[in-house]
């Protein structure tokens, strides 16, 4: 007897009891449910929530794999075991098994924790409320390990995921009802609760925190400095990475957000499959470019000189902002969240543009919050319903006017 029959039997056994949603969810997750609606006047589409989620997860896998290689690469580069890449995107220094193994064993626990805790809470709430378990956490669970620093202590991640899922989502009524993007809620919680583990120049390379502590205790080990490019720019330090390194993603940063190239491909994939909104992606990119360009012009006009603390980030070429930090990752995977983003087409343009615009503004004006894109998306999540409201009202007014013209 296969797993499917066993599950089915279990499900029948618990039908109507308190634990029923948990078994139902497990069954639906693994197999097609056996009690789907038959006939009737339904519009048929294969694009259910599960397929949408799976498509996004497929788009995230390259980032995850790349993150594993990059974790090892950054570590061995910092301790001096390997040389920096020389040979473009397919350099052997980067794509070797040693890098991957280190990254794999560091990142796999993060993925397991994220899914384990998050889905555990979803199951718990479904059982308490007698709902069905929704697939909403599948994407969040994959996003979370990609947007945290590699050395984040496991217990912090557990606390943050529990907080994010309960306060960010379940209190509002679960998947589809949340105001804020749960993955970003989790990251924001970590960022404000444990800033020493979430920012600065010691957290982005595997082992850096521990080594720094050893050095503080008198060990002779070399320090690993893994400053992100945004961190360097904010302090007007020189940046050692070439533009191509930044684009390919051979730079320190959160686990899965460094490779703009892969994110760009994934973005195209999401647009092609019509899962992600091209309006939001395009307008957010435009917003970031416009804001970056304004800052460049301010520098060109001589209003900001090298003595200013804003000089480093303001004078950054405006299009570089797209390839450093989590900007691209945020635009492609977070801003396009259909639940928390704007629903109307015109609303999407406004929503996306403001995300890009505000991200760069926060980045430049508040170097203490280097990852402006996180805060910008959370902020615009809050405003999305308001934007939609006015877009709809505007349309209503326009059509009323048109109606009056005709009758007159």
């Amino acid at each position, binding site marked *: 007897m296969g797993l499917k029959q066993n599950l089915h039997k279990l499900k029948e056994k618990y039908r109507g009891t308190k634990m029923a949603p948990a078994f139902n969810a497990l069954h639906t997750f693994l197999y097609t449910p056996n009690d789907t609606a038959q006939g009737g006047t339904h519009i048929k589409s294969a694009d259910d929530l599960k397929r949408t989620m799976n498509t996004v997860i497929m788009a995230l896998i390259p980032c995850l794999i790349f993150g594993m290689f990059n974790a090892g690469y950054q570590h061995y580069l910092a301790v001096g075991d390997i040389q920096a890449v020389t040979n473009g995107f397919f350099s052997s220094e980067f794509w070797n098994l040693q890098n991957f193994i280190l990254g794999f064993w560091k990142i796999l626990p993060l993925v397991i924790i994220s899914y384990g805790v998050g889905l555990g809470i979803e199951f718990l709430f479904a059982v308490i409320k007698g709902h069905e378990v929704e697939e909403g956490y599948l994407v969040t669970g994959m996003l979370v390990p990609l947007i945290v620093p590699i050395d984040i202590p496991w*217990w912090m991640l557990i606390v943050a995921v529990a907080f994010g899922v309960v306060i960010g989502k379940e*209190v509002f009524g679960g998947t589809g009802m949340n105001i804020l993007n749960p993955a970003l809620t989790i990251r924001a919680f970590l960022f404000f609760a*444990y800033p*020493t583990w979430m920012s600065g120049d010691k957290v982005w390379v595997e082992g850096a925190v521990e080594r720094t502590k050893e050095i503080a205790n008198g060990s002779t080990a070399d320090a690993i400095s893994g400053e992100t490019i945004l961190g360097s720019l904010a302090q007007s330090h020189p940046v050692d990475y070439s533009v191509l390194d930044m684009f390919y993603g051979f730079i320190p940063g959160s686990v899965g957000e460094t490779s703009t190239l892969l994110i760009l491909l994934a973005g195209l994939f999401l647009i092609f499959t019509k899962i992600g909104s091209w309006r939001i992606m395009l307008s957010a990119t435009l917003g970031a470019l416009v804001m970056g360009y304004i800052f460049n012009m301010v520098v060109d006009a001589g209003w900001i000189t090298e003595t200013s603390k804003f000089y480093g980030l303001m004078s950054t070429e405006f299009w570089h902002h797209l390839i450093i930090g989590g900007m691209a990752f945020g635009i492609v995977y977070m801003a396009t969240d259909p639940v928390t983003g704007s629903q109307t087409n015109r609303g999407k343009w406004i929503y996306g543009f403001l995300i890009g615009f505000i991200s760069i503004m926060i980045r430049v004006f508040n170097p203490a919050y280097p990852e402006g894109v996180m805060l910008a998306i959370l902020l615009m999540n809050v405003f999305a319903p308001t934007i939609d409201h006015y877009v709809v009202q505007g349309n209503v007014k326009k059509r009323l006017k048109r109606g009056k013209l005709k009758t007159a």
Partner: protein
Amino acid sequence: MRLLSKKDSKLIMDPLADNNPITIQVLGICSALAITAQLKPSIVMAISVIFVLGAGNVVISLMRNIIPSKIRIIVQLVVVATLVIIVDQVLKAYAYSLSKELSVFIGLIITNCIIMGRFEAFALANGPWQSFLDGVGNALGYGVILVIVGFFRELLGSGTLMGFKVLGDPVEKTGLYAIGYENNGFMVLPPMALIVIGIIIWVQRSKNKELIED
């Protein structure tokens, strides 16, 4: 023999639970967010409000028949302001560092909606003894929430309680800190107070379904 009649004890007990000024009426939130990062200021604030509201309710209740209703708000303000200044001066004299820490929020007790609310809703229409009980009850209800929030924010945010390092020393890595625990910096920020109050509201309403509005 009972100390309080059934009706009187209801005046004290109701605001503590099912008619709590913070969690049910959602009044007095500003100070609850501002001063609850530590337990000690929360307790001092609670005591101050108990004094001001208890005494104020009695004074207003005694004067209720001679206050012209057109200027009653001004009279009420004068009474609160007097009491608040007394609290402020006492704190400055006997607990200067605490009074520094609470800064303007003692003065802002005047604007605490709970106080004017109780004057208007209760003291103007009831005798001094009942008004006293009502004032103390409401202030206690406010204080209880303050202390709960302050307890969790100080414990999780700073790892201390009333200034004592109950979880060990974060610098010397003793106690919980030895196994890698760290303080939650978010707890110290005001938004977390709002979330903690939200959780209290959540727990309270899921225990007593009658409190859920429509």
